[in-house]
């Protein structure tokens, strides 16, 4: 993407019918470290690579719980992501208070997208520079949604976003037909495996995180030692030789 005369304002169209500022915002999402999500008929799983600013610092937190039945993974401007997370949490809580029922994932995503769209049409503000992968489970089953700074949102069986996420997507495209009836352990394994190509360093239990949600399981984030057994399964050196079902039993 190169600079041109029509990209100063988000309120300016280019002659080709594009709004460059929005596209640049989407580019910010592509610069963030990778996130991947996929779902079966019963569960939705989210995995992310957590970058470290320096060896002295901690890994950047990227997975957030929004409600008992819903959570997000973010890519892009993390600060924008935190703000949106707060908005999603507030909306969920509000809905739960008024209707005594968890909010439909799709409706919340739409609300967020409508909010994002406003900033693609104002002169004083900029679009949010963050993309979200939203996983949740509601009355209509598990869902995976992707939201973008443009205000677009899509529902997916599997999706990845962020740096080098194309390799993740290619990997997911290879296996997505099997996801429908897959066990939770295998879904987590696939999510982590899809991120292999997207990370600069080798995936370990400290530089990535996994979250899942299902009809009978509230949104849960796994990091560090909790993640260990899944990591072995997914990227362990000699996992071809190990008794996989036994490992899964330990892990869950």
């Amino acid at each position, binding site marked *: 993407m190169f600079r041109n005369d029509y990209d100063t304002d988000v309120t300016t169209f280019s002659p080709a019918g594009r709004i460059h500022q929005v596209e640049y915002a989407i580019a910010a999402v592509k610069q963030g470290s990778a996130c991947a999500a996929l779902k079966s008929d019963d569960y939705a799983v989210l995995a992310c690579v957590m970058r470290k600013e320096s060896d002295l610092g901690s890994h950047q937190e990227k997975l957030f719980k929004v409600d008992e039945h819903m959570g997000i993974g973010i890519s892009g401007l993390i600060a924008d992501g935190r703000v949106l997370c707060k908005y999603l949490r507030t909306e969920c809580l509000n809905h739960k208070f*008024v*209707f*005594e*029922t968890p909010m*439909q994932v799709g409706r919340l995503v739409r609300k967020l997208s409508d909010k994002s769209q406003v900033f693609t049409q104002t002169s004083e503000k900029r679009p949010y520079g963050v993309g979200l992968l939203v996983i949740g489970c509601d*009355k209509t089953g598990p869902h995976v949604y992707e939201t973008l700074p443009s205000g677009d949102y899509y529902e997916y069986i599997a999706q990845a976003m962020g740096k080098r996420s194309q390799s993740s997507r290619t990997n997911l495209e290879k296996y997505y037909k099997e996801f429908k009836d897959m066990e939770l352990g295998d879904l987590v394994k696939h999510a982590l495996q899809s991120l292999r190509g997207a990370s600069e360093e080798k995936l370990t239990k400290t530089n990535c995180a996994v979250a899942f949600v299902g009809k009978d399981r509230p949104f849960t984030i796994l990091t560090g030692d909790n993640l260990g057994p899944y990591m072995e399964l997914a990227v362990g050196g000699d996992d071809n030789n190990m008794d996989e079902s036994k490992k899964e039993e330990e892990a869950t």
Partner: protein
Amino acid sequence: PPTPNLPRSAARPGHSSGEMMMMGHGHEAKENPRTQTTQPIVTGASVLAITYADGVMMISDTLASYGSMARYKSVQRIGKVNDGAIVGASGEFSDFQYIKDLLEDLTDEDFDTADGRELSPKEIHSYLSRVMYNRRTKVNPLYNQLVVGGFDTSKGESYLGCVDMYGSTFKDDIVATGYGMYLALPLLRKGHDKKMNEEAARKLLEKCMTVLFYRDCRTINKYNIAKVTGSGVEISKPYSLKTEWGFKRFVDPHSSE
């Protein structure tokens, strides 16, 4: 200083049947009749509802009184919200119409979103209780006692609950508002069985409405009966019940027999 508003009894003229009480310290309400209501004007009497084998059944009469005058005699005080729920109201009729508009806004949103999810009876009940409590907190209540009845098809269960003008909510198999709370509730409790069939449920509700017609001055002998089951909502056309006025002592109180 303005005198505190004391609860008024139902016997005072200009007030409808039931225990429509004044709010405790509503002297601002008295000074702002245009923005804060203090008394109901056009009112409906009792609404009764019970759960039965197939779902929920609700009955009310079709009268909206103007104080002691039987002003509007063909009014429907039970409204359909969606295919799974109905709401009945006693008290101020205009407030019920407003509440129906609020519920219509919600169902319109469901329709626009078209994501396969309709409001469940529980959600409607919860929503209304928040609205009612919110209004009561502002000392500008919606002067109603609402009955929410429905059938949750995703669970295969009946749902029945009520909300009053203070925002108090209850969920029960038997619900009555207004004078029905005093006269009909004991009869309903005696005759009710969760597994009773449609015929029996109907007869029980009709018996109670007959008693209310005899005893509550602000009723007429014209009713809507509604049911919500797995197959949806049905609200009947208005109909009347048989009443007996030929008792000797009633016809001639001074008769020697």
